[in-house]
C-alpha cells in the first residue's frame, strides 16, 4: 500500500497548499473590497456623528485606518499569521471570541438542515425512486416547486404558518438550553433545507432509477439475489455515489445561504454577523468570518472527495472520474 499512501499524502498536501493559497487570495480580495467599498468604518463606529478631531485621530490610529491600504493589510496579515484576527471596531472585542460565540448557532443550523436534507430528501428520493404512482408524482410536483423556492420566502411562509398561525415554533432568536434551542432552530432549519432537500430528493430519485436499470442489477436478479439485498447492495450502494456528491455540494452551499435565514429569524450566527459587519465595514470581523467560511468550504470539498473515493473504487483521491 506504499504507493497509495504516498498518493494520498500528496493529495492532502496539495489540498492544504490550495487552502492556504485560497485563504491568502481571499483575504486580500475581501480586504480590498471592503476597503474600496463606499462608507467609512469610523462613520459606522460613531453612527455618523462628527466626532471631535482628537477622538477621531485616536480611533483612526487604533485601527490603523490612517495608514495606506497595503500597510493596513500587512498589519492584518501579520497579526492573523500569529493567530490574532484583530479587534471588531463595532464591539471593541477580539474577533476570534466574537466568531467563536456564534459558530455553534450556524453549525447547529447547518447540521440540523443537513440532517433534514439527508433524511427527508434522500428518503423521499428513494421512496419515489422505487415506487411509481401517487407518491412519486406528488413528490415530483412538490419538489419541483420547492426546489425553486428561495430560503427567504420559505422562511416567511414557515413563520406565517407555524409561528404566527399555529404557534408551534418560535420565529425569533436562539433559545436557551438544548431542547429550546432545537425548537428555535426548527423553522430556520426547514427554511434553509427546503430547496436543497427538493434537489437532493430529485437527484436521489433519478440515481435510484438509473442504478436500478443497470445491467449488473440484472446479473444479480439472474442469480436469485433477494430483492431487499439487491436494492441495498446494488441499487442503493451505487446510487450513494451521486447522492453523496449532490448532498456534499448542497450542504457546503448551506453555509452560504445560512446568512439569509439567520437574518430573518434573528439568529446569532456567523452568516447574519457577516452581513451586519460588512454593512458597518467592520473589516476584521468580515475577514475572520470569510476565512472561516472559505476554510469550511474547502474542507467540505476535501471530505466529499475522500468520501467519493471511498464509495467508488474506480476513483482515486484527487481524480474525480465520471
Amino acid at each position: 500500500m506504499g504507493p497509495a499512501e504516498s498518493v494520498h499524502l500528496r493529495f492532502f498536501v496539495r489540498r492544504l497548499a490550495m487552502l492556504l493559497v485560497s485563504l491568502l487570495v481571499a483575504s486580500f480580495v475581501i480586504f480590498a473590497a471592503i476597503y474600496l467599498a463606499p462608507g467609512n468604518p469610523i462613520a459606522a463606529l460613531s453612527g455618523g456623528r462628527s466626532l471631535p478631531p482628537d477622538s477621531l485621530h485616536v480611533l483612526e490610529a487604533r485601527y490603523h485606518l490612517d495608514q495606506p491600504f497595503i500597510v493596513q493589510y500587512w498589519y492584518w496579515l501579520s497579526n492573523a499569521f500569529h493567530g490574532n484576527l484583530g479587534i471588531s471596531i463595532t464591539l471593541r472585542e477580539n474577533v476570534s471570541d466574537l466568531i467563536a460565540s456564534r459558530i455553534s448557532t450556524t453549525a447547529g443550523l447547518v447540521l440540523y438542515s443537513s440532517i433534514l436534507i439527508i433524511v427527508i430528501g434522500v428518503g423521499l428520493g428513494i421512496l419515489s425512486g422505487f415506487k411509481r404512482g401517487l407518491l412519486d408524482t406528488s413528490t415530483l410536483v412538490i419538489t419541483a416547486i420547492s426546489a425553486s423556492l428561495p430560503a427567504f420566502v420559505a422562511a416567511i411562509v414557515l413563520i406565517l404558518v407555524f409561528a404566527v398561525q399555529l404557534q408551534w415554533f418560535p420565529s425569533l432568536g436562539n433559545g436557551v438550553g438544548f431542547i429550546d434551542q432545537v425548537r428555535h432552530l426548527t423553522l430556520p432549519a426547514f427554511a434553509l433545507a427546503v430547496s436543497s432537500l427538493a434537489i437532493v430528493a430529485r437527484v436521489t430519485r433519478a440515481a435510484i432509477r438509473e442504478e436500478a436499470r443497470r445491467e449488473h442489477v440484472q446479473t444479480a436478479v439472474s442469480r436469485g439475489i433477494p430483492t431487499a439485498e439487491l436494492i441495498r447492495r446494488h441499487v442503493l450502494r451505487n446510487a450513494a455515489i451521486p447522492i453523496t456528491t449532490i448532498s456534499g455540494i448542497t450542504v457546503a452551499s448551506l453555509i452560504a445561504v445560512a446568512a439569509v435565514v439567520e437574518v430573518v429569524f434573528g439568529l446569532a450566527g456567523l452568516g447574519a454577523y457577516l452581513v451586519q459587519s460588512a454593512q458597518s465595514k467592520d473589516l476584521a470581523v468580515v475577514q475572520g468570518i470569510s476565512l472561516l467560511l472559505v476554510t469550511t468550504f474547502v474542507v467540505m470539498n476535501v471530505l466529499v472527495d475522500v468520501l467519493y473515493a471511498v464509495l467508488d473504487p474506480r476513483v482515486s483521491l484527487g481524480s474525480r472520474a465520471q
Partner: protein
Amino acid sequence: MNRAEPAAGAPLLELEGVTVRLPVEGSMQAVLQDVSFAIRPGEALGLVGESGSGKSMTARAIDRLLPPGAAVTGRVRFGGRDVMTLSGADLKRFRGEVAMIFQDPRAHTNPVRRIGDFMTEALRTNARVPMDEAARRAVDLLASVGIEDGDRRLRQYPHELSGGLLQRVMIATALLTRPRLLLADEPTTALDVTTQAEVLAILDNLRSELSLAMLFITHNLELAAAICDRTVVMYAGQVVEVRESNRLHDQPLHPYTAALAAARPSIDATAHRLTAIPGRPLSAFEAPAEACAFTARCPYAADVCRERRPALVELDGGLTRCARARELFGRLEVELHA
C-alpha cells in the same frame, strides 16, 4: 415427436410456443413469436440470428429477466416444471440451476464491489455458504478458468481486470452455484479475437467436463457450429430453422441460414462484419402476420411466401420455416457459395 431430437430422454429445458409482448409507446408489441425448442441435459444448443432477432429476449424469457410489463404466453419448462409460475424458494433454486453469462462482463458486474463479493454473493445469500468456504470454491473455479492468483483477484475490483479476465471470472461465477444449464449470451462478442478463442475453449472444456447444458447465443453461425450440437436460427422473433450444427453451414434449410452462412467468415478469420444480406433485419413486431418474415430480403421470395406465414416443417432431420423449403433443398448452399 415432431422435433429434430435424435435421441430420447426428457429435455432439461423446453420452450413451447413462447410469445413475448412488450409495451412499446402504449401498445403491446411482439418481440418473440411462437418460439419452441428444447435442450437436453448436457447438450449445447446454439441460438443464432442478427441483432434484434430475439436471441437475447429468448434467454431473458427463459431466465425470467423480461422488463416489467412484458406479457408472455406459451410455456417454458425446466426439469419438467413450469418456469413462469415459480416463486419463492423454487424460483431461487431455479436461478441457482440456471446461470447466465452476459455479453459485456464490464456492464454486468457491479463496479463498486470486489470480485470476491461478486462471485460469492449468490452462494452466501442464497445457499448460506460461509464466506471462507465460498471464497475457497471461487478460487478453485478461478483456477479452472485459468486464473491462478485467485486470492489476489478476489480482492480486486472489476475495473482492475481486463475484459477477457473479467469474462473468465463471469464464467467461473456462473459455475459456482453448480448449475445444470448455462445461458451464454454472446459471451465473447465484446472480446478481442485471441481472447475470444481462449474464453471459448475454457467454456467448452468446462461444459463438457461438468456435462452442463448450454444455450449459446451468438450471431456467428460458425461459432455456434463449433461449440454446439444443434443450432436454432432466429429471424424477426421467430425460429426459422433448427438443425444439427455440423450440417447447418453446408446444407442450410432456410434461405436466411444460407445467407448468414455466406455472410459470416469462419471463426479464424478477421472479425470485421460483412453485410452480405441485403436489406434491414426486421423486428418481430414489424414482421407481417400473413407472410414469411424474410420475404423482403429473400432472393427466393415467391408469391407463395407472401400468402401466409409458413409453419415449421421437418426436412432432412431438421426444421425449417420456409414455404419453398423442399423446392430449394440442396440448392441454397450451392448458389450462395458460387
